[in-house]
């Protein structure tokens, strides 16, 4: 009995600091968001006014900025996931060949990933505005003269491009690790059986890369839906709201328009959507993995 009691006490003692910290920083704010989402509150007046589900109705009404920002976020996420994963696999396949400089190149691709996303946004803002102008004068290539941050469709692709550029190195190193784990004897057997290198890649390597693909697709999804810093630095959501993300909308609603109630409602809807999508994607990916 004495020992059991002591053990229970220790169990609490070792875990309580972590539980307290996540409760203060995550659970309490989360529960409060639930409460404030049912109120109208500007952060200044003492008492939030209870208005029931009014905020949620406002969110999904026709002219809502929020719905547009969700659509942008969805489009951004899909393109981001496709480009990061396809390009990262391509580069990783090249870098696992017997090239002497492979490690240096891997490092070069990784550099943008260690830089703050805000700074990455600024670097590209500089390049799109100043750098492209100079390059256009020198080369005369027409696309350099386009208004990459000033025209709606172009700005959208510019944001996707910069997002992928920043984090591609991360996915490359994950795929390199995955490719190195593909057993050599399986590939050799395929070669002996007369499979061409393309066939080997699509029929053998790619299916065996399953766990890496699951990890990378999942991570690119969770990172893309939260896109914020890059957009704030690069376009601030413009032009004309064409790069206005859901997280940016939540931020603006709360901290610039001071609509804390409506902002909280948006943040909860965002949470539910992200939760559902990530769980569905995870289920689908896991069910498709091949066992060796």
């Amino acid at each position, binding site marked *: 009995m004495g020992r059991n009691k002591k053990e229970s006490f220790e*169990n609490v003692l070792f*875990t309580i600091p972590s539980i307290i910290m996540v409760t203060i920083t995550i659970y309490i704010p989360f529960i409060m968001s639930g409460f404030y989402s049912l109120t109208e509150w500007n952060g200044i007046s003492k008492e939030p006014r209870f208005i029931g589900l009014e905020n949620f109705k406002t969110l999904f009404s026709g002219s809502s900025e929020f719905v547009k920002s969700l659509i942008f976020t969805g489009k951004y996420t899909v393109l981001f996931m496709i480009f990061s994963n396809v390009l990262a696999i391509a580069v990783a396949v090249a870098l696992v060949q017997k090239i002497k400089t492979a490690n240096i190149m891997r490092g070069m691709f990784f550099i943008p990933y260690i*830089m703050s996303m805000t700074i990455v946004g600024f670097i590209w803002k*500089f390049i799109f505005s100043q750098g492209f102008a*100079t390059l256009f004068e020198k080369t005369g290539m027409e696309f350099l003269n386009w208004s990459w941050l000033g025209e709606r469709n172009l700005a959208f692709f510019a944001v996707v491009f910069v997002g992928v550029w920043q984090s591609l190195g991360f996915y490359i*190193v994950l795929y390199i690790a995955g490719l190195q784990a593909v057993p050599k004897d399986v590939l050799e057997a395929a070669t002996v059986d007369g499979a061409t290198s393309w066939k080997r890649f699509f029929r053998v390597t790619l299916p065996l890369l399953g766990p890496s693909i699951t990890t990378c697709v999942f991570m690119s999804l969770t990172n893309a839906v939260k896109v914020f810093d890059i957009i704030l630095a690069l376009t601030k959501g413009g032009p004309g709201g064409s790069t206005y993300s859901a997280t940016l909308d939540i931020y603006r609603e709360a901290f610039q328009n001071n609509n804390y109630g409506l902002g909280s409602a948006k943040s909860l809807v965002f*949470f539910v959507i992200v939760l559902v999508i*990530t769980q569905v994607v995870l289920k689908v990916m896991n069910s498709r993995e091949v066992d060796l």
Partner: protein
Amino acid sequence: MSLAGKKKLKLVILAVVMGIIAIVYVYPVFLMFINSLKPFGEVVVDVIALPTKLEWANYTHVIDKMSYGKLFINNVMITAIGIVGIVGFSSMASYILSRRRTKYTRLAHLLITTPMLIPFQTIMITLLKVMNVINLSGSRVGLGIQYWGFGIPMAAFIYSNFMATIPKEIDESAFIDGASTFRTFRSIIFPLLKSVTFTVVVLDVMWIWNDFLLPLLMVNSSNDTKTLVLSAYTFVGQFNTQWHYAMTAMVLAVLPSIIIFILLQKYIVEGVVAGAVKG
């Protein structure tokens, strides 16, 4: 040409092509560096050209204007506080969570790791209010402490997965020798967790050092508490036509990360891969 020779030639071509792609890939970073060393006139006239002479005055001006030394100390302090708490608390909790299976530990495990599913933006509005009430907003120490809450779920998850691979016999023999639970953890288990601790440190330093949104909410109101990235953000906003100063501020903000990365590339990449695979 022989088959081996053909294969070798292919590899050389691949190396050259990939080399060119990699150079183009990091070229924007290089552009930032060269433009930070030009006087204003040269930046405007030709972005691509190398500086005719190195304008170090940009750096003295911006270092002084940003109070770079202070920002650097702020960043180190916030990151250090965050890391020590995350590593200490989450490794301690994971030890108990994976060794003892009771109703309580199962519940605790759930409570500690579930927050990984909640995006930061969902709670940021009310987080600010909570932190105002308990006085953790507006200070560097307070910000560092907040990172404990946000870092622990993922770190505890990674630690717990790894704990399962450490044989139980090791701590049992320590108990028989009369060591207390805490002592067993500190002197025997924690050293065995070295590789995971390393992974957690790499991931969390990269995250906290470069984080933007949480510092923006918590420590942006005073110059004494700002972080490097925050200050660079403000600075570039103010000097957005004076690109030479803006570039200098940006270089100063990312230079510490780049230097550390060049020195520790192998370990950092290993840590990031391990974190993603275990996480």
